[in-house]
């Protein structure tokens, strides 16, 4: 796909191009939004808000970077704003100072599918969920996460470690249950 032309046409407010851009990125971006929320409806709200921002700010996009990454950043920022704005999430987004949790190195994620991992991530408490998404998947450093969420990088580290160990234990349990189902409990 010729992103350069697509962006150009979108900037000219061509409806076909705008729809094409949306259709091309909507699914992957909804996957991103989904990981930050507890319901698909909230994820779609973020997706909608994010794409409106994308179209309004498309002139700021320079063609030197990847369009998908640029849109993804907008989606993540929109998701964080949504979490801060939405009371249901905001009230659960507390970050108590915790000791670093020992890192569990077992790689259980390999045996799960993307959807299953996403569902487990979504079961994390909102604070853990957000930090895990930002660090493990989006690749933000703890310093950056601290700036984004208004917390210290130490808190981000400890929260991440806690989230990670929680997730790994869930994945282990989940994969065990899955094996039992597969082999009939044998």
């Amino acid at each position, binding site marked *: 796909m010729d992103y350069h032309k697509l962006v150009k046409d979108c900037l000219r407010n061509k409806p076909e191009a705008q729809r094409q851009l949306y259709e091309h990125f*909507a699914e992957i971006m909804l*996957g991103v939004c989904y990981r930050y929320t507890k319901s698909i409806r909230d994820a779609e709200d973020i997706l909608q808000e994010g794409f409106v921002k994308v179209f309004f700010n498309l002139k700021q996009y320079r063609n030197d970077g990847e369009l998908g990454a640029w849109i993804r950043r907008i989606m993540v920022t929109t998701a964080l704003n949504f979490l801060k704005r939405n009371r249901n999430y905001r009230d659960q987004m507390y970050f108590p100072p915790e000791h670093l949790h020992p890192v569990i190195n077992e790689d259980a994620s390999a045996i799960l599918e993307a959807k299953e991992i*996403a569902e487990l991530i979504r079961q994390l408490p909102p604070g853990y969920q957000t930090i895990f998404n930002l660090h493990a998947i989006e690749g933000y450093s703890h310093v950056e996460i601290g700036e984004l969420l208004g917390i210290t990088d130490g808190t981000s580290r400890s929260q991440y470690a806690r989230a990670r160990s929680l997730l790994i234990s869930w994945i282990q349990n989940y994969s065990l249950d899955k094996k039992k189902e597969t082999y009939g409990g044998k």
Partner: protein
Amino acid sequence: MAANEFEKNVRREMDEFKLHPSGEVWPKIEERIREKDRKRRILFFILFSSIALMLAGYGIYNFSGNNRKSEAQHKLSEDNNQADKNKIDNSKNEELNKGTVAIKQTIPLENTEQANKTLLVGKQKQMHQPHKEDGFLRPIPRKDPGSQDQITVNIDPAEKENYIKSDKTNQETTNVSSSNRQQVITDTAQREVAKPNDKNLALNNTTGSKLEEPTDTRPVQVMNKKKEDKVSNKITWGLGLSAGTSVITEDAFSFKSSYAAADRQYNVPGSSQNGGNPATGGGGSGGPTTYYRYAQSQNEPAFAFKAGIHARKTISKRSSLSAGLGYSYLADKIKVGATQGQGQTQSAFSLSYYSGSPQQTFTDHFHFLEFPLSYNWRVTNNADHFLSLNAGVSPSYLLATNALLYDTAAGGVYYHNKDLITRTHLNFISGISYQFKNKNSLEFSIGPQFSFDITKAFKSDLDKRKYFLYTGIGASVLFDNKKK
């Protein structure tokens, strides 16, 4: 390593993680994008209208002020004989001249006697002339605009005779003293004239202007200007032609064509329609039926033109009204499928209809008879070549059309039904034109023209197209019979 492995795996899995959004998301996004465009357009429209109104208000204000003066002057001319008339004209011109400058005369000491004599003969002059106090001009009470008529009717014929005599004396005196006279021009004394209750005001003004004539040419200039400002009441006729493009827009005050999704097949789940798919067939059995429907094609602008005759009546030195009768050809292009012939299906479509698949371009032709009425306002000062703003309304009547309407039935079709096409329309028209005259009393104008229909083109809500928009370049010629 293993720790990084976990993050890598999760990231890899998540990069591939996709979810299909529901069908509600895109329409909401689209609505918000268009809403911003619409707001921008409305803001632009309000801004443009405000500027146009301010300009028009300014023009009307100026025009009405000049008109009052012209009427008063005209009355004076009628009331007085020919000899007086010239003097009074000068007097009034001087008054007008005070709109921009006031002239103060100072007489040197050696001419004091003569000056005093002059002032005694026409003692009113003292009242007329600005007083000098401590080197500054004393303000004279502002003249009531409505008092000019009073001045005119209070002139007594007996006094008029005296005035003529005294005026002659003044002239003699002035001839002696004019060489030594100095003129002091001050802008601070703008529009400062004598008291309105002085019945000899006009006479004094006349003597005053007589004094100024030898050295000051401005009264003459003002007279010329008055001639130019004189509003001609006659009607001039003209021919006009305009060519450009037209389209049927979806939104009010939009400059875009209808943005119905172009040439796209839509998957419409769970529909109860039995239309099925004109191209690929319906969905599987069981559960909600999935079928395909051709959405309405995006329409595109097409060539259009307008021609007609019009009459113009000047209503002030800067503004005029135009009314006319014209023919207007508008069109727009859509994409339709193959014709399905006559009477195959769909009794609602009385004649042949076209499938919704975008295979060929079809041009909708519309032939209108229109009656444009517009207000024209000259922006620039030069009366021989100038810019003019035009705005008005144009009722029109649809004479004939071959337009196809869209309907969602049978998977999306286009059909012709004249009962669903609006016949009478009302358009807003506006434009900017550059106008100039040639030596043969012909007046030409050229410039962009806009016409926006505020009546819906079709009575069917299934067709997204709503309002005609025409943009073009117009040229016209006016036949002015006035000999130069």
